């Protein structure tokens, strides 16, 4: 088992390297640089900016250098734990990515758990009761949920929760708890706010997972061993849960690999609308203002998060299915 994990971790290194090149390319592509964006931003509010200030800023951030040199400086720094400086905030990137990425990971993880908790039973019910009212309802809902753009749901839900239920606008905490130390009350406050993003982000993928569970289980239910067990007089509930569900669960676990990127992508959009203290709003802002080291760090870390998620799903799979770890 340990060897299997080590092999998988080793396999992640080239992927991580590829992601780093991709991230750097993406942030290098836009024409102009942070300084020109900054100048435009200042001018927009009617505030004046001096062209000599800009020249000085360019020099200070080393923006004139060769791209390859910039990349190796960047990646070299990252290996030592230095993600570079955020131009816009005049702060080391390291100081601000971890907290935000942590929140993104937390929200994604909670969404994943919720998705499982919801899609597993519904998938089982709609498979066992194929073509029943519940099955039709969930099918219709599943398709609908995948078809609605997440950000539309987000803004409408935000409006409803604020204006009708009086929850403070957006964010993951009430103002009173935002900068407060950890406490039970803070956790409860968090849960009160977190259900909207979890619901919105998980909506599409939950629907898809329900469909997958249903299909997997349907495949199993028609197999002879189930018929045989039923003929032996095994109660229907135990019959379904002992074997078919367990077998159907395997392909279900392997879906984490692709659900996670979708979740993180969804989280990025939704968090912008909902004003969550996660990576999304900062990443979007960084991309818009060409704050390259900040944007690069986020792209790199979201990629890393997905790789770790895939690793976990592989390990889970290996635990549940010996064939995988031996092959």
């Amino acid at each position, binding site marked *: 088992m340990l060897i299997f994990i080590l092999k998988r971790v080793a396999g992640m290194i080239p992927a991580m390297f590829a992601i780093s090149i991709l991230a750097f390319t993406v942030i290098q592509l836009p*024409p*102009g640089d942070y300084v*020109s*964006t900054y*100048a*435009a*931003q200042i*001018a*927009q*509010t*009617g*505030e*004046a900016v*001096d*062209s*000599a*200030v800009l020249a*000085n800023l360019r020099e200070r951030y080393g923006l004139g250098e060769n791209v390859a040199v910039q990349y190796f400086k960047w990646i070299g720094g990252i290996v030592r734990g230095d993600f570079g400086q*955020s131009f*816009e*905030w*005049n*702060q*080391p990137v390291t*100081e*601000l990515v971890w*907290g*935000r990425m942590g929140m993104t990971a937390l929200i994604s993880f909670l969404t994943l758990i919720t998705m499982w908790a919801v899609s597993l039973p519904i998938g089982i019910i709609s498979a066992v009761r194929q073509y029943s009212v519940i099955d039709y309802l969930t099918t219709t809902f599943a398709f609908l949920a995948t078809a609605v753009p997440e950000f539309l749901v987000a*803004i409408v839900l*935000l*409006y409803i929760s*604020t*204006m009708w239920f*009086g929850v*403070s*606008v*957006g*964010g993951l*905490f009430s*103002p009173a708890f*935002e*900068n407060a130390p950890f406490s039970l009350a803070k956790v409860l406050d968090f849960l009160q706010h977190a259900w909207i993003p979890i619901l919105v982000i998980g909506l599409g993928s939950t629907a898809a997972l329900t469909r997958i569970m249903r299909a997997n289980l349907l495949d199993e239910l028609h197999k002879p061993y189930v018929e045989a067990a039923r003929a032996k007089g095994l109660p229907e509930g135990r019959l379904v849960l002992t074997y078919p569900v367990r077998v159907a669960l395997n392909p279900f676990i392997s879906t984490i690999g692709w659900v996670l990127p979708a979740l993180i992508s969804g989280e990025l959009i939704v*968090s*912008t*609308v*909902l*004003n969550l*203290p996660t990576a*999304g*709003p*900062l990443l*979007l*802002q*960084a991309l*818009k*203002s*060409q*704050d390259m080291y*900040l944007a690069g760090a986020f792209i790199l870390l979201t990629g890393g998060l997905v790789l770790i998620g895939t690793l976990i799903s592989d390990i889970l799979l290996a635990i549940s299915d010996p064939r995988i770890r031996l092959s």
Partner: protein
Amino acid sequence: MKHLRVAALAGISFAALASGAAWAQEYQQSPALDGLDLPSVAERVGSEPRVVTPVSEVGKYGGTFRGGMVGGNDRNMLFTYFGYEPLLSWDADWSGEVFPNIASGYTASEDSKSFTFTLREGMKWSDGSPFTADDIAFFIEDVLPDEKLFPTKPGWLTVEGELPTIAVASPTEFTISWTKPNGLFIINAASVYGVQLALLNKAYCSQFMPKYNPDADANAKAAGVADWAEHMTNMCGVGIENIQRWRNPERPTLEAWHITEPYVAGATRVSFERNPYYWKVDTAGNQLPYIDGLSISVNAEAQTLLLSVLAGEIDYEVRHTANTANLPVLAEGTEAGNFYISPRESRVGNSLAVSVNLNSHDPVKAEIFGNKDFRVALSHALDRVAIIDTLFLGQGTPQQVSPREGTPFYNERLATQYLEYNVDEANRLLDSIGLDKRGGNGFRLAPDGSPLVVNVAAVTALGANADAAELLVQYWQAVGVDARFSAQDRTRFYEEKTASQHDIVVWGATSGGIDVFIDPRDYFPFSTESNFAVDWAKYYIGDGGTEPPDYVKEQWALYDQIKGTSNPEEQAALFQQLLEITADQFYQIGISTAIPGLAVVSNNLGNVPTDTPTGWIHPDPGTLNTEQFYFKN
């Protein structure tokens, strides 16, 4: 001769001194400070605090002010709300007169070369250390000339490249001077820029300079930054617009509140606490501010802040959501959100400035755009009333880009020429300048027979500008000009127009009141923000460019004369002469009088004036004296 105005100011400060002394025993402080280990209030506010007359009534102590920031680096929200503490200040109505603030008075030499200020006796920084002329001298002598801290010097502090010198006569008196006249110095010292002079506490900030502390560089390295200058900027926020001004809770300040939860990237909320040493009192002897703390949310999107406003979670908002586009939503939400809409006066010269590029690098276009009749035709082709109805909810009347009516700078001819919606006249003018031939698509051809495509650029993120461009294009197409709307990203837009590669751009107009002296970009080629003639402006600021015709040079000469005097009447008269040339040349096309501004104010917030002017140079609500805002309940 000293100006009478100046003498009057000195009088005010003496009155304040006298009454301050009389009240010495009667100052009150916020209950929030009771029980803290502090010197007495009288000692803290000094012997001549600035006495602020509350807008409507003497307020009550207590409460936390709730505000909101939007987007990336919105540090200037904090600046315009709570950071306007210049040496001298403007009043809320922006009469143009300057009043004592940090300085209790000033005198200007007759030749406008030197300016003597008096400071308040016993005034203190937020850490209790005394504020003296030495702090100002530290900035003028040590910080401003430093190449690392100030690689480029603020324009208003230099005269033809020369930096000021300072002579400290006593802890409360100093003189700033140049060898040449700086007639706009006092106006600038009262503006948002004037905050720079008294921003830095010498005792605290000098510890980061090698001149005062041999370990400065080593300390910087230990803190993980490149050099002492960066370390000092991080800890002290050297410039008025540095975000670091709002980062370090230990940094002493003269502002009414000092930061406790800093504004760092990733922060979701920034908090402030009252400055126990604040040097202003109300007419009843209560030490200001009334409000104990500030709590400012950081929002990713303006819509989220708008929702907070509607939900009654914001006490005052003027910067991001209080605009015409949101007015219908706000107007219907006043009851539920427990706020009211307080009118503000926008002092800009027009609702929009439409600039045809006189310095186009395309020779054919340069010829056509340079022809005044072309611009006049474009102006006549616009149905301004319909545009005002569509974009500005019918607020405003047609006008060209011009200083506002009611100010000494208003020029009627400039403001009202070529406003009539007259398609026939537009067509006639276009025909008359050689654009009478039409191509296969029905649009006019350039005199050489080539198709004439005119790109009208606007920034998509600024909704009103882009919407306006979409409408303008349709009006111009109606008179046969092949105008095309080009939606641009802000950066691209800025790069293109700065390089003078644009045809026509739609942007906001700027100064319309006393600020025409500080930023006259709309009235002659003054800076690269003069979108109608960027190359000429570059020539003016010595950054390459091309040499302009004589009438532009005449305007530059007039502006130099304005800077050479500090007599307001003379300055206004010279500016009128300058505007006559602007009117002759018709540089820019305007749409309508500035759209009235608005602020969203909680019903619970007292002492907020209405109908006050807004802007960057005269910031709202900073100029309304936020320290005397208070919560009624």
